[in-house]
């Protein structure tokens, strides 16, 4: 009873409390597990593996001392979205090879600049190329020039302040992407950039945009590479040579698919190289994996091309000091000397030394001035040209006075005629009986720059072992062929007369693929490259014609037709002459040949 009196009140005391508790709370909150949070302390920044230390390259001192063989043009005329300092790794490698780098100038037409260039580098262009420029580039590559073109997704559009004031592309600014501009040039070679970027979410170098490339094809450009990292790259489409591409987990931003992950390609016998990223060669990314080796390979690509060097490269026909050799029969009159002075200024403008010479030097280029037909010295440089000179004369008095069997005599003018040793082809000798303005003994005319024109006794021919007079045939034989180096039977005197020659039987020169031309009407500019020496031979009828040819050489060749790249046929007929002679000029002043005159020229001189 007493217990009841205690328990019941306690119960009634607790009851409301319990009721309220259960009214609000059906249980306690219990977690299944501890709250999990990221292990921040264990997170680390990802760093790539760096390239191994490369052997220190010592500069090639010989290539620094001599004239650089390869000239590399870096384009800065098309809104190129980069700084020169960003490609230090490439320019340093080029310097080590002895290459000379030039930056394009918007004031000089690209076609002209490319004549003196062996490799052309176009990086992230954002201003369009004109059709003329595109054709110039195509011609440049056609002739063996090399092109490196790089775009980059992070440099796809022009930055403020960058634009081109090129005379040839003044209005194309800022509205084209780098991809569109680059494709203008390379699509013709079977390569095109896509306006995307490649990415890899899981397998990357520090960021999804930085893709790792291990799928590298075996090629001279990719030689030695095992792992490359591109830091944001366009993909490429190509029907040509694939150099590098991403793996199956690398995707394109355009499609989010792995369909096309090519990042580098080459074309046109590996003369065109296209790459979708520029950042890989900038610091510090050039130090990652094999990126620096790729830069070195690119530098080698730019300096190992073999570009065909011919008259189309005018005015850049020479790349070394130039020796001038003038045939002794050519009189150095005032006009001639003033033109030679102009020639010297021309070469100075090209940063080339120029001087008279009596001997050829192996490390110099050569400019030879001669008259028709070329003498034996000159013909030694003409081996590759299949020219046929035809000289005729019915002047028996001339022939009779020229005795090929006579000893070497000095005539009253001091000219030497040489004794023929045998009836073999040899160099042509001047007709001592014919006075002409081709008198090399005239020393009254001052020489330019203190150079002393060579005397007849000073000129030596490297291959002239037989200085005998040309054996003359017993009768006049028309259309006598003169092959280079071996003049069979040219008629002495006729070619040195300075006269127009026999109107009915003009002297002619036959050029393969072009036909016969009257020597009085044309001057020839022959160009050859042998043993690294560039040789230009100017042939014309007389000193005045030589003077005209020199003028062409220092200006342009618009009065000339270039045949097969190494023979320039220049008109010697002025409009005044043609009007007086009732003949039309050979060329119309714009390099176009007058067809009616060609028909006249091609008539046989004997008919």
């Amino acid at each position, binding site marked *: *009873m007493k217990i009841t*009196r205690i328990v*019941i*009140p*306690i*119960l*009634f*005391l*607790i*009851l*409301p*409390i319990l*009721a*309220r*508790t259960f*009214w*609000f*709370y*059906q*249980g*306690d*909150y219990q*977690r299944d597990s*501890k*709250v*999990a*949070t*990221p*292990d*921040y302390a264990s*997170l*680390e*920044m*990802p*760093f790539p593996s760096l390239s191994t230390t490369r052997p220190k390259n010592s500069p090639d001192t010989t290539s620094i001392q001599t004239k650089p063989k390869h000239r590399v043009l870096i384009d800065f005329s098309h809104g190129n979205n980069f700084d020169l300092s960003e490609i230090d790794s490439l320019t340093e490698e080029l310097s080590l090879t002895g290459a000379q780098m030039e930056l394009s100038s918007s004031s000089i037409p690209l076609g002209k600049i490319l004549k003196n260039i062996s490799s052309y580098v176009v990086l992230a262009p954002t201003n369009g190329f004109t059709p003329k420029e595109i054709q110039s580039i195509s011609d440049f590559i056609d002739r063996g020039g090399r092109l490196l073109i790089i775009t980059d997704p992070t440099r796809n559009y022009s930055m403020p302040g960058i634009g081109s004031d090129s005379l040839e592309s003044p209005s194309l600014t800022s509205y084209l992407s780098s991809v569109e501009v680059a494709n203008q040039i390379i699509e013709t070679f079977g390569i095109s950039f896509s306006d995307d970027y490649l990415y890899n*979410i*899981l397998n990357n170098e*520090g*960021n*999804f945009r930085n893709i790792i490339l291990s799928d590298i094809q075996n090629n001279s450009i990719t030689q030695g590479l095992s792992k490359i990292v591109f830091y944001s790259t366009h993909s490429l489409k190509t029907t040509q040579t694939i150099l590098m591409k991403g793996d199956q987990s690398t995707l394109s931003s355009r499609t989010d698919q792995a369909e096309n992950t090519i990042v580098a390609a080459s074309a046109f016998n590996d003369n065109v190289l296209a790459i979708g990223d520029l950042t890989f060669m900038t610091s*510090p*990314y050039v130090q990652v994996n094999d990126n620096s080796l790729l830069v070195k390979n690119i530098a080698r690509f730019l300096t190992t091309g073999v570009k065909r060097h011919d008259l189309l490269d005018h005015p850049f026909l020479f790349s070394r000091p130039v020796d001038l050799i003038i045939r002794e029969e050519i009189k150095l009159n005032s006009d001639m000397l003033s033109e030679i002075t102009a020639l010297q200024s021309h070469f100075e403008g090209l940063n080339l030394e120029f001087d008279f010479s009596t001997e050829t030097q192996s490390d110099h280029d050569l400019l030879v001035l001669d008259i028709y037909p070329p003498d034996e010295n000159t013909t030694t440089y003409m081996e590759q040209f299949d020219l046929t000179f035809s000289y005729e004369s019915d002047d028996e008095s001339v022939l009779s006075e020229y005795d090929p069997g006579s000893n070497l005599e000095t005539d009253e003018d001091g000219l030497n005629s040489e004794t023929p040793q045998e009836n073999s082809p040899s160099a042509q000798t001047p007709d001592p009986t014919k006075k002409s303005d081709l008198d090399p003994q005239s020393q009254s005319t001052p020489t330019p720059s203190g150079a002393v024109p060579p005397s007849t006794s000073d000129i030596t021919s490297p291959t002239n072992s037989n200085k005998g007079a040309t054996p003359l045939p017993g009768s006049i034989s028309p259309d006598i062929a003169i092959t280079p180096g071996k003049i069979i039977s040219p008629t002495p005197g006729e070619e040195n007369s300075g006269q127009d020659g026999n109107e009915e039987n003009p002297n002619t020169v036959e050029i393969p693929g072009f036909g016969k031309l009257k020597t009085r009407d044309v001057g020839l500019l022959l160009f050859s490259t042998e043993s690294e020496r560039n040789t230009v031979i100017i042939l014309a009828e007389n000193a005045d014609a030589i003077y005209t040819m020199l003028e062409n050489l220092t200006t342009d060749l618009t009065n000339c037709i270039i045949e097969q790249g190494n023979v320039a046929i220049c008109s010697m007929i002025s409009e005044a002459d043609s009007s007086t002679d009732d003949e039309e000029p050979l060329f119309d002043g714009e390099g176009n040949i007058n067809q009616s005159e060609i028909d006249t020229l091609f008539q046989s001189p004997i008919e």
Partner: protein
Amino acid sequence: MNEHKPVTLTKAKLFLIIVLPLIAGTLLSFIIPQPVVGLITFDDEIYGFSAKEFNTQITYAREHPEIRAVVIILNSPGGTVVDTESMYMEIARLREKKPVITQIEGIAASGGFYVAVGTDYIIAKPSSMIGNVGVLSFLPDNPSIDENLYSTGPYKLWGFPRDTVMRELEMIKQSFLQAVTLGRGKALKTDAETILRGQIWMGSEALRMGLVDELGSLSYGIEKAARLANISHYRTEDLRILSGLPDPSSLPFFIESPDGLISPYPPNPGIYLLYVPNMEGKQ
């Protein structure tokens, strides 16, 4: 022989044995507080000021036993990394004691989603914008020197090399991914590569991917929080009011030009867990 005398409960005894204890017990029962589901409304970018106010409310909830569950009503595109992490960590402490639910309203992107995955349960609307997992940052300029401004190290003025910023983003991205995978656990039905694309998904798609738990309304979310907390007959309270914070206000997060145009980027350089929509011209 003794005879039992009948026990008669006098009124006085009845009162002492039953009524009085009952009254006393009833009065004592009021010690048991009515459970509260606390509501935290976060409708802002995540930056110093907003994160501070949020953490104040979280702290209040943690320190007051009557708050049995918390519902975060979330509508945020994210913001700075450090403030996001601060909110995330405070939520983790609270979750040791009480369930925390996220009710996504308009958007929970980037840092907003980072906060959401740090809670016990995520409820969204079918068209809520969810995801945008990733980090972004402007890179600093390359170090240079000035004749008139001297410092004692190359990065005293610039903070980081450009390359280091890129790699720090990667590190933060990894922490974000860990937060998502740990927070979602077995409910996650998609892979890391998909998550790290940085995409935004609608609520219904996010549900299929396991990024959220359910689609529902706020009232449903509150009930869910109550069930997790094993409470009923609860009341809801705005923790901003309970914690004594003033009325909501926010400072401009994005750059606003004098003519009212708002840029899509925050004014201060830094690293962000932020969704940056095209806001050009937005007033």
